[in-house]
């Protein structure tokens, strides 16, 4: 599936899927690596710093997407 085609599909969960795997791939990998490094003894918030960056990227991506949608509607 083409990433552009997926951005166009519009349910919120679809958008989250695209952003978490494509737009924020770098932060996603960093977070995943952190978990894999400690996965026999994962505690709450053991990769908090990495997830915060990932989460910030996701929120930014959703915001930009919303903005673009508005522009298209105009």
């Amino acid at each position, binding site marked *: 599936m083409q990433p552009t085609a997926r951005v166009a599909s519009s349910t919120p969960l679809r958008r989250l899927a695209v952003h978490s795997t494509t737009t924020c791939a770098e932060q996603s990998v960093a977070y995943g690596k952190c978990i894999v490094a400690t996965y026999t003894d994962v*505690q*709450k918030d053991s990769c908090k710093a990495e997830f915060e960056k*990932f989460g910030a990227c996701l929120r930014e991506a959703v915001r930009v997407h919303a903005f673009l949608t508005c522009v298209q509607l105009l």
Partner: protein
Amino acid sequence: MLALRHARRAGSHTHARTFAAVSSSINPSGVGPFQVFDRNAKRLQKDRAVARDGGERSRTVDYVRNEVADRLMERFMDIKRKFETVLDLGSGAGHFSKLLEEDKAGKVTMLDLSGKMVERDPDSEFEVAVDRGVLDEEHLLQSIPPNSQEAIVSCLSLHWVNDLPGVLVQIREALKPDGVFIGALFGGDTLFELRTALQLAEVEREGGISPHVSPMANPRDMSNLMSRAGFTLLTVDVDEVRIGYPSMWELLDDLRDMGESNAIIGRRHFVPRDTLAAASAIYQQLHGEDAGVPATFQVIYMIGWKPAPNQPRPLERGSGDTNLKTVL
């Protein structure tokens, strides 16, 4: 809107759902097998899966069931007998029944929990005559008389049954003497990648876990369950189907379209976005391969016969008249 949703639910189903966990009536103080799965929710999930895009989505995700049906058919063909009737229990859209040939079976009866699922595909796709019906596998003997069936087949439906030993006993009861039961069901390693990714994500993000992937039968227990249910001449074997997906999200979509979403009683009805995104990242890093992520479906195949006097059986102990010592 909310009121309307409730009214519609109450109209089409006898159980009106209020907010959360259980959609079928479960009596906690009653005696009987422990209830793990919400059968009513499972029926709704299957009905909805078939209704999505006029059945198109449901047909697209037939690949797991078709593959397993094919492998089950190989085992079925090894039985050198022609059956007048075959009962396909939990048939889905007839993935197994479609493969039946006329020299093997005269007629097939497809029964499934979901009426929409069982009616999905037209008769023209089947080689043998088809009969369809709606039946809850857990109450097989309420509709099928004992000692009435030559062969009962079940392809990937028994993993949603609460009382597996009880259903196996009912199947044995429904069979004629010397009748055969041949089945495939998902085993305990199924979707272990998804299970671990969601558990790690929930622990790290929220500090606890909840059930997302069903508990499933352990392959080592199956032969015990079969012999306890009274089957003889058992064959049990285990196989895996591995499917690659671009990411966890496509797997979740396809599971939903298969009607295989979570139906555990007490499941979470809402998973926070953060946890899902975290699970997707962990799935990729922990199990990912170059071109995406794999999902494993472990399948247990079993064959068992209802005892009959004319079946081959071991000779009496000590009745041999050749001394093995002289042969070896």
